[in-house]
Protein backbone atom coordinates (compact mmCIF):
# COMPACT_ATOMS: atom_id res chain seq x y z
CA UNK A 1 0.00 0.00 0.00
CA UNK A 2 2.80 2.38 0.93
CA UNK A 3 4.49 1.74 -2.37
CA UNK A 4 1.24 2.42 -4.16
CA UNK A 5 0.82 5.73 -2.35
CA UNK A 6 4.40 6.62 -3.14
CA UNK A 7 3.84 5.91 -6.83
CA UNK A 8 0.67 7.97 -6.81
CA UNK A 9 2.49 10.81 -5.06
CA UNK A 10 5.28 10.64 -7.63
CA UNK A 11 2.80 10.72 -10.47
CA UNK A 12 1.07 13.68 -8.83
CA UNK A 13 4.37 15.52 -8.54
CA UNK A 14 5.18 14.80 -12.15
CA UNK A 15 1.87 16.33 -13.07
CA UNK A 16 2.46 19.50 -11.07
CA UNK A 17 -0.05 22.10 -12.11
CA UNK A 18 -2.44 19.39 -13.16
CA UNK A 19 -5.63 18.69 -11.34
CA UNK A 20 -5.58 16.05 -8.62
CA UNK A 21 -7.50 12.94 -9.46
CA UNK A 22 -9.76 10.84 -7.30
CA UNK A 23 -10.82 7.24 -7.68
CA UNK A 24 -14.31 6.57 -8.95
CA UNK A 25 -15.26 3.02 -8.11
CA UNK A 26 -16.63 1.10 -11.04
CA UNK A 27 -20.24 0.22 -11.21
CA UNK A 28 -23.11 -0.32 -13.50
CA UNK A 29 -24.66 2.43 -15.47
CA UNK A 30 -27.82 2.18 -17.49
CA UNK A 31 -27.50 4.37 -20.55
CA UNK A 32 -30.34 6.75 -21.20
CA UNK A 33 -32.98 5.49 -23.62
CA UNK A 34 -32.40 1.89 -22.72
CA UNK A 35 -35.43 0.10 -21.37
CA UNK A 36 -35.57 -1.43 -17.91
CA UNK A 37 -34.74 -4.88 -19.24
CA UNK A 38 -31.85 -3.82 -21.49
CA UNK A 39 -28.33 -4.71 -20.33
CA UNK A 40 -26.55 -2.44 -17.91
CA UNK A 41 -23.24 -1.00 -19.05
CA UNK A 42 -20.38 -1.90 -16.77
CA UNK A 43 -17.95 0.89 -16.00
CA UNK A 44 -14.53 -0.09 -14.64
CA UNK A 45 -12.98 1.89 -11.81
CA UNK A 46 -11.09 4.92 -13.08
CA UNK A 47 -9.53 8.18 -11.91
CA UNK A 48 -11.19 11.52 -12.58
CA UNK A 49 -9.89 15.06 -12.13
CA UNK A 50 -11.41 16.69 -9.06
CA UNK A 51 -11.96 19.94 -10.93
CA UNK A 52 -12.52 21.08 -14.49
CA UNK A 53 -9.34 22.34 -16.22
CA UNK A 54 -8.85 26.06 -15.55
CA UNK A 55 -7.71 28.90 -17.80
CA UNK A 56 -4.40 29.00 -15.89
CA UNK A 57 -3.79 25.27 -16.41
CA UNK A 58 -4.71 25.53 -20.07
CA UNK A 59 -2.35 28.49 -20.47
CA UNK A 60 0.53 26.35 -19.19
CA UNK A 61 -0.39 23.73 -21.80
CA UNK A 62 -0.46 26.32 -24.59
CA UNK A 63 2.92 27.70 -23.51
CA UNK A 64 4.41 24.23 -23.83
CA UNK A 65 2.47 23.35 -26.98
CA UNK A 66 2.50 26.46 -29.16
CA UNK A 67 0.63 24.63 -31.92
CA UNK A 68 -2.43 25.06 -29.68
CA UNK A 69 -2.16 28.88 -29.41
CA UNK A 70 -5.38 30.56 -30.43
CA UNK A 71 -3.78 32.00 -33.55
CA UNK A 72 -1.99 28.76 -34.47
CA UNK A 73 -4.47 25.91 -34.06
CA UNK A 74 -5.64 24.62 -37.49
CA UNK A 75 -9.28 25.23 -38.36
CA UNK A 76 -9.94 21.50 -38.77
CA UNK A 77 -9.43 21.22 -35.00
CA UNK A 78 -11.04 24.42 -33.69
CA UNK A 79 -13.75 26.85 -34.67
CA UNK A 80 -13.04 30.54 -34.99
CA UNK A 81 -14.16 31.20 -31.41
CA UNK A 82 -11.35 29.06 -29.96
CA UNK A 83 -10.17 30.77 -26.74
CA UNK A 84 -12.27 33.79 -27.74
CA UNK A 85 -12.27 35.02 -24.13
CA UNK A 86 -8.47 35.28 -24.05
CA UNK A 87 -6.95 38.68 -24.85
CA UNK A 88 -4.08 37.18 -26.80
CA UNK A 89 -2.26 33.91 -27.39
CA UNK A 90 -1.01 33.82 -23.83
CA UNK A 91 -3.07 36.14 -21.66
CA UNK A 92 -6.56 36.45 -20.27
CA UNK A 93 -6.53 39.45 -17.93
CA UNK A 94 -10.22 40.09 -18.01
CA UNK A 95 -11.17 36.73 -16.65
CA UNK A 96 -10.34 34.66 -13.63
CA UNK A 97 -7.39 32.29 -13.89
CA UNK A 98 -9.18 29.76 -11.75
CA UNK A 99 -12.33 29.71 -13.88
CA UNK A 100 -12.85 26.64 -16.04
CA UNK A 101 -11.38 27.04 -19.51
CA UNK A 102 -14.09 27.17 -22.17
CA UNK A 103 -14.14 27.96 -25.91
CA UNK A 104 -12.08 24.79 -26.37
CA UNK A 105 -12.80 22.07 -28.91
CA UNK A 106 -12.78 18.29 -28.36
CA UNK A 107 -9.46 18.12 -30.21
CA UNK A 108 -7.95 20.75 -27.89
CA UNK A 109 -9.32 19.03 -24.79
CA UNK A 110 -8.08 15.65 -26.03
CA UNK A 111 -4.60 17.06 -26.72
CA UNK A 112 -4.49 18.67 -23.26
CA UNK A 113 -5.36 15.43 -21.49
CA UNK A 114 -2.86 13.46 -23.56
CA UNK A 115 -0.15 15.96 -22.66
CA UNK A 116 -0.85 15.09 -19.01
CA UNK A 117 -0.69 11.35 -19.69
CA UNK A 118 -4.45 11.26 -19.25
CA UNK A 119 -7.49 11.07 -21.50
CA UNK A 120 -11.01 12.49 -21.64
CA UNK A 121 -13.61 10.56 -19.62
CA UNK A 122 -16.03 8.39 -21.56
CA UNK A 123 -19.72 9.31 -21.50
CA UNK A 124 -20.51 6.31 -19.28
CA UNK A 125 -17.71 7.22 -16.85
CA UNK A 126 -18.79 10.83 -16.68
CA UNK A 127 -22.41 9.90 -16.10
CA UNK A 128 -21.48 7.36 -13.42
CA UNK A 129 -19.42 9.96 -11.54
CA UNK A 130 -22.14 12.58 -12.02
CA UNK A 131 -24.79 10.30 -10.52
CA UNK A 132 -23.34 10.98 -7.10
CA UNK A 133 -24.79 13.48 -4.69
CA UNK A 134 -22.77 14.90 -1.79
CA UNK A 135 -23.50 11.85 0.32
CA UNK A 136 -24.34 8.95 -1.98
CA UNK A 137 -22.83 7.28 -5.05
CA UNK A 138 -26.30 7.27 -6.54
CA UNK A 139 -27.88 10.63 -5.82
CA UNK A 140 -30.95 9.86 -7.87
CA UNK A 141 -32.25 8.08 -4.80
CA UNK A 142 -32.15 11.34 -2.89
CA UNK A 143 -35.17 13.60 -2.90
CA UNK A 144 -34.58 17.02 -4.41
CA UNK A 145 -31.26 16.06 -6.05
CA UNK A 146 -32.47 16.08 -9.64
CA UNK A 147 -34.31 19.32 -9.05
CA UNK A 148 -31.09 20.91 -7.80
CA UNK A 149 -29.33 20.00 -11.06
CA UNK A 150 -32.24 21.16 -13.17
CA UNK A 151 -32.25 24.50 -11.39
CA UNK A 152 -28.71 25.08 -12.65
CA UNK A 153 -29.67 24.03 -16.17
CA UNK A 154 -32.40 26.66 -16.14
CA UNK A 155 -29.99 29.53 -15.36
CA UNK A 156 -27.94 31.19 -18.10
CA UNK A 157 -24.14 31.00 -17.64
CA UNK A 158 -22.64 34.22 -16.27
CA UNK A 159 -20.29 36.12 -18.60
CA UNK A 160 -17.32 35.48 -16.35
CA UNK A 161 -17.53 31.98 -14.96
CA UNK A 162 -16.93 31.47 -11.22
CA UNK A 163 -13.75 29.73 -10.05
CA UNK A 164 -13.71 25.94 -9.94
CA UNK A 165 -14.41 24.30 -6.59
CA UNK A 166 -17.12 26.74 -5.57
CA UNK A 167 -19.62 23.98 -4.97
CA UNK A 168 -19.30 21.12 -2.48
CA UNK A 169 -17.56 17.89 -3.52
CA UNK A 170 -19.74 14.97 -4.40
CA UNK A 171 -19.56 11.51 -2.81
CA UNK A 172 -16.30 10.74 -4.71
CA UNK A 173 -14.66 14.08 -3.92
CA UNK A 174 -15.32 15.51 -7.37
CA UNK A 175 -16.42 19.12 -7.76
CA UNK A 176 -18.44 20.99 -10.37
CA UNK A 177 -19.79 18.10 -12.45
CA UNK A 178 -23.03 20.02 -12.25
CA UNK A 179 -23.48 23.73 -11.88
CA UNK A 180 -20.51 25.28 -13.69
CA UNK A 181 -19.97 24.23 -17.32
CA UNK A 182 -20.85 21.41 -19.71
CA UNK A 183 -17.94 19.05 -20.27
CA UNK A 184 -16.44 17.22 -23.25
CA UNK A 185 -16.36 13.43 -23.20
CA UNK A 186 -14.06 11.18 -25.21
CA UNK A 187 -16.84 9.38 -27.08
CA UNK A 188 -19.56 12.05 -27.25
CA UNK A 189 -19.89 11.09 -30.93
CA UNK A 190 -21.26 7.71 -29.93
CA UNK A 191 -24.61 9.37 -29.33
CA UNK A 192 -26.42 8.05 -32.37
CA UNK A 193 -29.49 10.08 -33.01
CA UNK A 194 -29.81 9.59 -36.74
CA UNK A 195 -27.80 8.63 -39.79
CA UNK A 196 -26.18 5.57 -38.27
CA UNK A 197 -25.95 2.58 -40.51
CA UNK A 198 -27.15 -0.43 -38.55
CA UNK A 199 -30.77 -0.95 -37.76
CA UNK A 200 -31.52 -0.63 -34.13
CA UNK A 201 -35.00 -0.19 -32.83
CA UNK A 202 -33.87 1.51 -29.65
CA UNK A 203 -32.21 4.14 -31.81
CA UNK A 204 -35.18 4.61 -34.12
CA UNK A 205 -37.47 5.43 -31.22
CA UNK A 206 -35.25 8.38 -30.44
CA UNK A 207 -36.40 10.12 -33.58
CA UNK A 208 -39.65 10.71 -31.75
CA UNK A 209 -39.67 12.79 -28.59
CA UNK A 210 -42.40 10.89 -26.81
CA UNK A 211 -41.14 7.56 -28.12
CA UNK A 212 -37.71 8.28 -26.64
CA UNK A 213 -39.05 9.27 -23.26
CA UNK A 214 -41.31 6.26 -23.02
CA UNK A 215 -38.37 3.94 -23.59
CA UNK A 216 -36.11 5.63 -21.08
CA UNK A 217 -35.27 4.18 -17.71
CA UNK A 218 -36.08 7.27 -15.75
CA UNK A 219 -38.15 9.83 -17.64
CA UNK A 220 -37.91 12.05 -14.56
CA UNK A 221 -34.16 12.53 -15.12
CA UNK A 222 -34.72 15.42 -17.47
CA UNK A 223 -31.19 16.73 -16.86
CA UNK A 224 -29.77 13.54 -18.38
CA UNK A 225 -31.96 14.08 -21.44
CA UNK A 226 -30.53 17.57 -21.77
CA UNK A 227 -26.96 16.27 -21.62
CA UNK A 228 -27.83 13.59 -24.17
CA UNK A 229 -29.36 16.13 -26.52
CA UNK A 230 -26.50 18.55 -26.01
CA UNK A 231 -23.85 15.91 -26.76
CA UNK A 232 -25.62 14.73 -29.89
CA UNK A 233 -25.64 18.29 -31.23
CA UNK A 234 -21.88 18.73 -30.87
CA UNK A 235 -19.12 18.50 -33.45
CA UNK A 236 -15.55 17.94 -32.32
CA UNK A 237 -14.31 21.35 -33.47
CA UNK A 238 -17.05 23.31 -31.68
CA UNK A 239 -15.86 25.94 -29.21
CA UNK A 240 -18.60 27.16 -26.89
CA UNK A 241 -18.76 29.67 -24.06
CA UNK A 242 -20.03 27.17 -21.49
CA UNK A 243 -18.29 23.97 -22.61
CA UNK A 244 -15.10 22.93 -20.82
CA UNK A 245 -13.57 19.61 -19.79
CA UNK A 246 -11.67 17.59 -17.21
CA UNK A 247 -9.44 14.56 -17.68
CA UNK A 248 -9.60 10.94 -16.55
CA UNK A 249 -7.15 8.03 -16.37
CA UNK A 250 -7.34 4.28 -16.35
CA UNK A 251 -6.59 2.52 -13.07
CA UNK A 252 -3.38 1.04 -14.43
CA UNK A 253 -1.84 4.20 -15.85
CA UNK A 254 -2.62 6.19 -12.71
CA UNK A 255 -0.93 3.46 -10.65
CA UNK A 256 2.13 3.72 -12.80
CA UNK A 257 1.84 0.15 -14.14
Amino acid at each position, binding site marked *: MKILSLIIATVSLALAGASEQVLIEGGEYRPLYMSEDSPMQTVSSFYLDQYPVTNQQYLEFVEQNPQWRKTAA*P*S*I*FVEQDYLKHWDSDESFEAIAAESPVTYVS*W*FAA*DAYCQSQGKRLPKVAEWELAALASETQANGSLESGYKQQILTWYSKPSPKTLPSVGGSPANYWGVHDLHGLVWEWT*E*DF*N*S*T*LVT*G*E*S*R*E*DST*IDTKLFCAGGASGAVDPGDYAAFMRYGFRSSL*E*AKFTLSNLGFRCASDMKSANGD
Partner: protein
Amino acid sequence: MKQWLTNILISSVLGLAAHSVVIAGDMPGDSIYQLGSQWTTQDEESLNIGQLKGKKQVVSLIYTHCMHTCPTIVATMQEVQKSLPKNEQERVGFVLISLTPDSDTPEVLKSFAKRRKLDPKSWTLLTGSEQDVRSLAMALNIKYKKSDDNEVAHSNLMTVLDENGRVLFQEIGDIDKAQETVQRIISR
Protein backbone atom coordinates in the same frame (compact mmCIF):
# COMPACT_ATOMS: atom_id res chain seq x y z
CA MET B 1 2.45 -12.22 -34.53
CA LYS B 2 1.53 -8.67 -33.73
CA GLN B 3 4.23 -7.46 -36.08
CA TRP B 4 1.93 -4.86 -37.60
CA LEU B 5 1.25 -3.45 -34.15
CA THR B 6 4.95 -3.11 -33.58
CA ASN B 7 5.14 -1.44 -36.97
CA ILE B 8 2.55 1.06 -35.83
CA LEU B 9 4.48 1.79 -32.66
CA ILE B 10 7.72 2.24 -34.53
CA SER B 11 6.12 4.31 -37.23
CA SER B 12 4.33 6.41 -34.61
CA VAL B 13 7.69 7.39 -33.21
CA LEU B 14 9.06 8.02 -36.67
CA GLY B 15 5.74 9.61 -37.46
CA LEU B 16 6.48 12.44 -35.07
CA ALA B 17 9.17 13.52 -37.49
CA ALA B 18 7.02 12.78 -40.53
CA HIS B 19 4.18 14.66 -38.88
CA SER B 20 6.10 17.90 -38.67
CA VAL B 21 7.29 17.47 -42.25
CA VAL B 22 3.74 17.01 -43.46
CA ILE B 23 2.49 19.97 -41.43
CA ALA B 24 5.41 22.12 -42.49
CA GLY B 25 4.19 21.98 -46.08
CA ASP B 26 1.38 24.17 -47.32
CA MET B 27 -1.28 22.05 -45.70
CA PRO B 28 -4.51 24.02 -45.43
CA GLY B 29 -5.78 24.54 -41.88
CA ASP B 30 -9.01 22.75 -42.72
CA SER B 31 -7.29 19.66 -44.15
CA ILE B 32 -7.89 16.40 -42.31
CA TYR B 33 -4.24 15.63 -43.09
CA GLN B 34 -3.48 18.02 -40.21
CA LEU B 35 -4.18 14.97 -38.05
CA GLY B 36 -0.81 13.58 -39.07
CA SER B 37 -1.88 10.16 -37.83
CA GLN B 38 0.00 6.99 -38.66
CA TRP B 39 -1.68 3.91 -40.17
CA THR B 40 -0.85 0.48 -41.57
CA THR B 41 -2.06 -0.57 -45.03
CA GLN B 42 -3.35 -3.94 -46.20
CA ASP B 43 0.23 -4.57 -47.40
CA GLU B 44 1.60 -3.91 -43.90
CA GLU B 45 3.16 -0.68 -45.07
CA SER B 46 3.14 2.26 -42.72
CA LEU B 47 1.33 5.31 -44.02
CA ASN B 48 1.02 8.82 -42.66
CA ILE B 49 -2.44 10.11 -43.49
CA GLY B 50 -0.82 13.09 -45.22
CA GLN B 51 0.57 10.70 -47.84
CA LEU B 52 -2.94 10.47 -49.30
CA LYS B 53 -2.34 13.99 -50.58
CA GLY B 54 -2.28 14.58 -54.34
CA LYS B 55 -5.45 12.73 -55.36
CA LYS B 56 -9.07 13.23 -54.55
CA GLN B 57 -9.98 10.50 -52.05
CA VAL B 58 -13.30 8.82 -51.37
CA VAL B 59 -13.13 7.74 -47.72
CA SER B 60 -15.36 5.51 -45.61
CA LEU B 61 -15.07 4.08 -42.12
CA ILE B 62 -16.11 0.44 -42.12
CA TYR B 63 -15.24 -2.91 -40.57
CA THR B 64 -14.75 -6.08 -42.53
CA HIS B 65 -17.03 -8.43 -40.56
CA CYS B 66 -19.96 -6.00 -40.86
CA MET B 67 -23.00 -7.78 -42.26
CA HIS B 68 -25.33 -4.85 -42.69
CA THR B 69 -24.42 -1.55 -44.27
CA CYS B 70 -20.68 -1.78 -44.83
CA PRO B 71 -21.06 -4.08 -47.87
CA THR B 72 -23.41 -1.48 -49.37
CA ILE B 73 -20.95 1.35 -48.71
CA VAL B 74 -18.13 -0.60 -50.35
CA ALA B 75 -20.34 -1.61 -53.29
CA THR B 76 -21.35 2.03 -53.75
CA MET B 77 -17.73 3.14 -53.75
CA GLN B 78 -16.95 0.42 -56.32
CA GLU B 79 -19.81 1.67 -58.48
CA VAL B 80 -18.43 5.21 -58.21
CA GLN B 81 -15.01 3.97 -59.28
CA LYS B 82 -16.40 2.06 -62.27
CA SER B 83 -18.51 5.01 -63.41
CA LEU B 84 -15.70 7.56 -63.35
CA PRO B 85 -14.38 8.53 -66.81
CA LYS B 86 -11.00 6.91 -67.59
CA ASN B 87 -9.04 10.15 -67.20
CA GLU B 88 -10.60 10.77 -63.76
CA GLN B 89 -9.95 7.27 -62.47
CA GLU B 90 -6.26 7.93 -61.93
CA ARG B 91 -7.03 11.11 -60.03
CA VAL B 92 -9.32 9.52 -57.46
CA GLY B 93 -8.32 7.13 -54.70
CA PHE B 94 -10.57 5.00 -52.51
CA VAL B 95 -9.83 4.57 -48.81
CA LEU B 96 -11.44 2.23 -46.29
CA ILE B 97 -10.55 2.76 -42.65
CA SER B 98 -11.34 0.12 -40.05
CA LEU B 99 -13.56 0.90 -37.09
CA THR B 100 -12.40 -2.32 -35.41
CA PRO B 101 -8.63 -2.08 -35.76
CA ASP B 102 -8.02 -4.86 -33.22
CA SER B 103 -9.67 -7.50 -35.39
CA ASP B 104 -9.04 -5.87 -38.78
CA THR B 105 -5.35 -6.70 -39.06
CA PRO B 106 -3.57 -5.97 -42.35
CA GLU B 107 -4.01 -9.64 -43.34
CA VAL B 108 -7.74 -9.45 -42.72
CA LEU B 109 -7.92 -6.24 -44.75
CA LYS B 110 -5.92 -7.82 -47.54
CA SER B 111 -8.18 -10.83 -47.81
CA PHE B 112 -11.24 -8.54 -47.65
CA ALA B 113 -9.81 -6.51 -50.55
CA LYS B 114 -9.20 -9.67 -52.57
CA ARG B 115 -12.64 -11.06 -51.86
CA ARG B 116 -14.30 -7.81 -52.86
CA LYS B 117 -11.99 -7.45 -55.91
CA LEU B 118 -10.69 -4.05 -54.85
CA ASP B 119 -7.96 -2.95 -57.24
CA PRO B 120 -4.85 -2.32 -55.09
CA LYS B 121 -3.82 0.52 -57.42
CA SER B 122 -6.82 2.58 -56.35
CA TRP B 123 -7.83 1.15 -52.99
CA THR B 124 -6.08 1.70 -49.69
CA LEU B 125 -7.32 -0.16 -46.63
CA LEU B 126 -6.06 1.15 -43.31
CA THR B 127 -5.88 -0.04 -39.74
CA GLY B 128 -4.45 1.93 -36.83
CA SER B 129 -4.97 2.76 -33.17
CA GLU B 130 -8.41 3.19 -31.60
CA GLN B 131 -7.39 6.72 -30.67
CA ASP B 132 -6.51 7.71 -34.23
CA VAL B 133 -9.71 6.12 -35.54
CA ARG B 134 -11.68 8.24 -33.08
CA SER B 135 -9.85 11.46 -33.98
CA LEU B 136 -10.36 10.80 -37.69
CA ALA B 137 -14.07 10.08 -37.15
CA MET B 138 -14.29 13.32 -35.15
CA ALA B 139 -12.62 15.28 -37.96
CA LEU B 140 -15.07 13.80 -40.48
CA ASN B 141 -17.98 14.29 -38.07
CA ILE B 142 -18.82 10.61 -38.18
CA LYS B 143 -20.69 9.07 -35.26
CA TYR B 144 -20.14 5.51 -34.18
CA LYS B 145 -20.85 3.29 -31.23
CA LYS B 146 -19.16 0.02 -30.56
CA SER B 147 -21.03 -2.72 -28.76
CA ASP B 148 -19.56 -5.52 -26.67
CA ASP B 149 -19.82 -8.01 -29.55
CA ASN B 150 -17.36 -5.94 -31.65
CA GLU B 151 -20.15 -4.72 -33.91
CA VAL B 152 -20.24 -1.00 -34.62
CA ALA B 153 -23.21 1.18 -35.40
CA HIS B 154 -21.91 4.05 -37.49
CA SER B 155 -22.80 6.90 -39.80
CA ASN B 156 -23.36 5.52 -43.28
CA LEU B 157 -21.28 8.11 -45.11
CA MET B 158 -18.73 8.45 -47.88
CA THR B 159 -16.53 11.52 -47.58
CA VAL B 160 -14.90 12.97 -50.68
CA LEU B 161 -11.65 14.84 -50.01
CA ASP B 162 -9.90 17.19 -52.39
CA GLU B 163 -6.23 16.80 -53.32
CA ASN B 164 -5.22 18.54 -50.08
CA GLY B 165 -7.44 16.59 -47.73
CA ARG B 166 -10.24 19.14 -47.42
CA VAL B 167 -13.77 17.76 -47.26
CA LEU B 168 -15.48 18.49 -50.59
CA PHE B 169 -18.73 16.79 -49.63
CA GLN B 170 -20.24 13.82 -47.85
CA GLU B 171 -22.82 11.47 -49.29
CA ILE B 172 -24.85 8.57 -47.97
CA GLY B 173 -23.23 5.27 -48.90
CA ASP B 174 -26.17 4.07 -50.91
CA ILE B 175 -26.02 2.63 -54.43
CA ASP B 176 -28.68 5.10 -55.60
CA LYS B 177 -26.27 7.91 -54.78
CA ALA B 178 -23.38 6.55 -56.86
CA GLN B 179 -24.04 8.43 -60.11
CA GLU B 180 -24.74 11.69 -58.30
CA THR B 181 -21.46 11.24 -56.41
CA VAL B 182 -19.59 10.68 -59.67
CA GLN B 183 -21.02 13.89 -61.14
CA ARG B 184 -20.06 15.85 -58.07
CA ILE B 185 -16.51 14.47 -58.10
CA ILE B 186 -16.08 15.36 -61.79
CA SER B 187 -17.47 18.86 -61.36
CA ARG B 188 -14.93 19.74 -58.69
